[in-house]
């Protein structure tokens, strides 16, 4: 049979006849089942330094990390979101019902199920993400949060002081909660079986989420772009994928330029409306009095009245989109650059159609709306890969070692600790 291949271990001489089909394409190295030594396939000379032999059946030798690619032309790896509204509708309804029936106890399990679905439906280069949190860990966090909340809510009956102390502690603990929540979620997220992680730096967290916002408030918002910059930088640079940290390259100047754009857009859109409002204001008063004999027709006065909220809404969406793009496009991972191309027009349209759909379906189209928004966000995100995603090493001792208390306290007290870009 010519289909059989003989493999002989150069170290101990162990010989094995293997069917050719059983050797996957591209396999170059093999380890001997008897002496556990690794050697090159095809009878080539063994590598100069064989990896240290581990005691038991070791997994196949990992390819060396960070091999510089021969061809350095960047490839565009795309994100996509494949979740269907039908699937999510079922998950959403069952989650909500069970949460109702168990007075919220089920929320930990519901959260894990929902996140498993969202993570599993999100792929980068056709490889899905995974959410690995243990619902029991979340439940323990939920219990602590629930006790704190009860103390806060019922504390005022016993003594207002108790309630105040609990409230103050939670408020003062916000940056801590944020870091703990981020740590928990990062450690329980993985892609290609490599977990993410978040480096806790509490003093830095208090600096950017407590001190800077207070100073920023005192400067009438002049420091707000700087604060935002520091917050995003903190969040991104403390995150890593495996042992590889994310890098944030945006500058303070870019944040100030973006803020300037937003302010200018706001002024530019509001000024003509304001002038129109003033001009037609008299006409409106006349219309109310019943004598619409002025040059401005009745309806004209209503245009600025209805467009004010609309313009305001569009500016908010514009600001969010601008910042999201700015942050993603300044984020890289091991020479792979994120590319985000969200458009204000699309986002605004999505928000409006979603709001209308939810309104007219009495909330039943919520899952559909969530799918629409998530799909769009990931459709517009990509990774310009110079190095590719291969060869990123897991961080030493990575695993779910963080308690979920921060995550759940934030949730129960309605704080948004789930800061995403």
């Amino acid at each position, binding site marked *: 049979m010519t289909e059989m291949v003989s493999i002989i271990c150069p170290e101990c001489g162990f010989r094995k006849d293997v069917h050719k089909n059983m050797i996957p394409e591209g396999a170059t190295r093999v380890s001997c089942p008897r002496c556990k030594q690794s050697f090159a396939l095809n009878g080539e000379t063994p590598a100069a330094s064989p990896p240290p032999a581990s005691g038991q059946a070791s997994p196949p030798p990992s390819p060396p990390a960070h091999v510089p690619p021969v061809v350095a032309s960047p490839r565009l790896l795309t994100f996509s979101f494949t979740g269907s509204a039908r699937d999510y509708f079922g998950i959403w309804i069952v989650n909500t019902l069970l949460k109702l029936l168990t007075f919220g106890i089920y929320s930990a399990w519901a959260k894990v199920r929902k996140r498993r679905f969202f993570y599993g439906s999100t792929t980068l280069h056709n490889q899905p993400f*995974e959410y690995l949190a243990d619902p029991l860990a979340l439940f323990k966090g939920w219990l602590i949060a629930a006790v704190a909340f009860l103390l806060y809510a019922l504390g005022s009956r016993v003594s207002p002081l108790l309630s105040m102390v609990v409230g103050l502690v939670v408020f003062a603990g916000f940056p801590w909660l944020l870091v703990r929540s981020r740590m928990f979620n990062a450690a329980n997220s993985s892609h290609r079986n490599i977990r993410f992680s978040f480096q806790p730096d509490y003093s830095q967290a208090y600096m950017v989420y407590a001190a800077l916002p207070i100073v920023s408030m005192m400067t009438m918002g002049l420091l707000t772009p700087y604060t935002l910059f520091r917050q995003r930088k903190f969040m991104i640079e403390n995150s890593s994928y495996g042992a590889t940290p994310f890098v944030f390259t945006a500058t303070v100047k870019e944040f100030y330029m973006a803020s300037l754009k937003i302010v200018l857009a706001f002024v530019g859109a509001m000024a003509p409306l304001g002038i129109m409002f003033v001009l037609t204001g008299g006409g409106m008063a006349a219309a109310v009095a019943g004598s619409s004999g002025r040059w401005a027709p009745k309806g004209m006065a209503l245009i600025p009245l209805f467009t004010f909220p609309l313009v305001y809404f569009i500016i908010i969406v514009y600001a969010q989109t601008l910042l999201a793009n700015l942050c993603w496009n300044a984020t890289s991972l091991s020479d792979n650059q994120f590319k985000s191309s969200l458009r204000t027009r699309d986002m605004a349209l999505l928000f409006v159609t979603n709001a209308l759909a939810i309104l007219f379906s009495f909330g039943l189209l919520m899952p559909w709306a969530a799918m629409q928004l998530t799909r769009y966000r990931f459709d517009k995100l990509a990774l310009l890969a110079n190095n590719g995603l291969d060869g990123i090493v897991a961080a030493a001792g990575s695993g779910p070692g963080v308690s979920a208390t921060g995550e759940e306290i934030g949730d129960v007290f309605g704080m948004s600790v789930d800061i995403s870009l």
Partner: protein
Amino acid sequence: MTPVESDLRNDSKIMKFIPVAYFDGKVSTRREALLSFEGERVTLLCDGVELSYPVATLHLSQAVGSIRRTIRLPDGGICETSDQGFVEELEQILGNCGRASLLHRWEKSLTLVAAALGVMALIVVLFMRFGIPSLARQAAFALPPAVENSMGRESLAVLDRLFTKPSKLAAARRVELTALFRQVVTASGASPGYRLEFRNGGAIGANAFALPSGIVIITDQLVELAKNDDEIAAILAHEQGHVRGRHALRHVFQNSATGLIIATMTGDLVSITSLAATLPTALVDASFSRTFEREADDAAISWMKSAGVPPRRYAEILGRLQAQLDVRTGDAFDQKNPARNYLSTHPDTGERIRRIMKDGPKAP
């Protein structure tokens, strides 16, 4: 003889190889591998190396939606396959995902999801209909007097700033009406903390309000609209009913609670979109007010019975108020527009008048 060797020697016994993507958990590299299982053991073949594990040590990730499922190996590696048949086979062998797969089947089945939706709607409706009002009632009666007083003061201040002006009523008439109010309040056996305030209604015209902490406001226009003091007394008895039932507080609590619950239940989206879901609050709200108006009407009727005032007096001033409102809003055809009627915060006046008159003849 190690299992690895046995697998290799008995080549023919291996039923089939399933192509999988293998991630060892140490490096992010994706590797193609083959997985086979035979009896009690599973064998992974990757890069010419074989790894063998007892089947029972494998862990299959839960089925959620249509996401790809992973097979977790005891050493931390994972395998992914698009071979659905194999995954199902493995699930049967492992048989350890009972509860999770039950959930999955529930979420996937259209009828079961519809049933869940029905049960949920029922719970929500029952809770909004009975749960929230009773909670709001408890909260309103448990509120410390200091808080209630400050709420009353605040709402009076807001009312004064936005709508009402100082009253132009003669001082003597005010004294008269205050005495009448006292009479109504003591006859109903309410606490003595209630007080009557006079205001010029301005744009809101003939009207009367009951605020937290026992403040009752009557507008000059209402005093003028009334043909006699019995009518005013009936209105005051009605407002006193609102005060006694702490309707203003309960109204505020119910509104915020309903809004809060709807927001939490649908609040998966962090955006303006979840605000849209709170519209039904407005619909529910109207029927809450209806109940309160009935309760207050009952209080007015019971006072009239005890004071020997014919219920017709109350019906007459209500009718006059409604007529005035119709003229002002130009909504004379209001009755033909049920949606407008349902959304209005005051229940259909005609219905109320009929109810009062029905109660009337029974008066001793």
